[in-house]
């Protein structure tokens, strides 16, 4: 059972912000796959839900000069089925194909997923690897921060109470190579790895390995730097060291799974993701 609340439909972002400002005890609502669930479980009982779905500008997937823009209220399924995303960021399509289940993907939104800041989020790690940004609009104006900056802690974001996350932007990258691997024991991933790099003239630059689901927020591994400037053919050989480095960096928070094993999973998935990356699997 979902506790009682008032439902407010916002016609545009400004109205949504006004509603958020007006009501002390309000929450943004779009797909509800996370919010309604925690309300049922008694972990939250906001008196007002501000429905963002009617806001047209939160929808749509567009591309400008190779920069991909995904509206906050776009569902996982829309991303999964978007020809534009398939063309520009096939790894995200592949990732979305494995988020939860069809029903959650049909309803749950990308913006909602990020704002909920569940540590085991699938998209978060990949978006951090891509150095994606989010736009936050509040009564004080609009600002753009990276997804990495957005995610402060488990279930905690940099979004202010009166701010709306309006969209996600994945920057254009010349010669982008991207790979995503996940390993799940229950509904959400136990470990996820996103590897992102630019490959020009057969060499990697700006490599970024991100470990999701292990710590409270996606971790950008310092060990990624080892890959910088390597030729594609050298990546596999360097992979073991990089993988061990990433494994050493993570700070596991799951008490149910052993630290040693989690670090092993991180290393295995990093190796596999790097292999995907250089094999030219979907980027």
């Amino acid at each position, binding site marked *: 059972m*979902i506790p*009682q609340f008032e439902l407010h439909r916002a016609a545009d972002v400004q109205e949504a912000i006004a509603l958020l400002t007006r009501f002390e005890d309000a929450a943004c609502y779009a797909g509800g*796959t996370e919010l309604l669930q925690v309300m049922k479980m008694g972990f939250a009982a906001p008196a007002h839900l501000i429905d963002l779905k009617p806001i047209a500008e939160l929808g749509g997937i567009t591309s400008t000069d190779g920069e991909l823009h995904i509206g906050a209220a776009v569902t996982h399924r829309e991303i999964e089925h978007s020809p534009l995303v398939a063309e520009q960021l096939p790894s995200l399509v592949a990732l979305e194909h494995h988020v*939860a*289940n*069809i029903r959650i993907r049909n309803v749950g939104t990308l913006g909602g997923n990020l704002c909920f800041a569940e540590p085991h989020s699938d998209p978060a790690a990949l978006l951090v690897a891509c150095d994606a940004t989010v736009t936050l609009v509040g009564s004080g104006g609009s600002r753009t921060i990276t997804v990495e900056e957005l995610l402060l802690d488990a279930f905690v974001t940099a979004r202010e109470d009166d701010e709306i996350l309006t969209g996600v932007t994945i920057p254009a990258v010349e010669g982008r190579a991207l790979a995503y691997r996940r390993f799940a024991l229950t*509904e959400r991933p136990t470990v996820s790895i996103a590897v992102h790099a630019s490959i020009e003239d057969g060499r990697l630059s700006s490599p970024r390995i991100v470990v999701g689901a292990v710590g409270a927020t996606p971790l950008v591994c310092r060990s990624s730097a080892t890959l910088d400037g390597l030729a594609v053919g050298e990546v596999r050989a360097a992979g073991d060291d990089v993988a061990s480095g990433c494994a050493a960096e993570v700070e596991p928070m799951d008490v149910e799974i052993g630290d040693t094993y989690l670090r092993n999973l991180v290393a295995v998935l990093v190796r596999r993701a790097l292999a995907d990356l250089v094999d030219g699997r979907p980027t």
Partner: protein
Amino acid sequence: MSRSISIGLEVNRRPIRLDVAPNETLAQTLRERLSLRGTKVSCDAQVCGTCTVLVDGRAVSSCTFLAADADGARITSIEGLAEPDAGRLARLQRAFVERAAFQCGYCTPGFLMSATALLAEIPNPTREQVIEYLEGNICRCTGYDAIVAAVLDAADEAADDGSDGRTA
């Protein structure tokens, strides 16, 4: 008390208007307000798929879908699968009967609705596609084997007939 919300929707091809509470789920509306009890609720957490119904053709967990959000939508529940006039079973339902793709039957409406969405989206799925699509539906009795076979049967039969797969 929170204000109720007036919604208009189509349930199994029938237009309906009603007032719903903001926190009322679509499952509650179907089961308790419209007496369509074929839709079952089990985990109440969007995991098991038992409460699956179609909202404008998309499979959703009606246990965690606000009735208010069904305003203007076309809802199909298990009661709407068979042909409206003759009461003839839909192809998928017949395939489930032939394969005995159920035992206790509690998960069956959810599986049938998910499979309906699947065949609408992918009329000729591979076995792997059926398995992936139905991963979010749990059955404890059958071990899934007969369910997957029944969905493939229904798709094959539709392909043979050149029809849309829902009815014969």
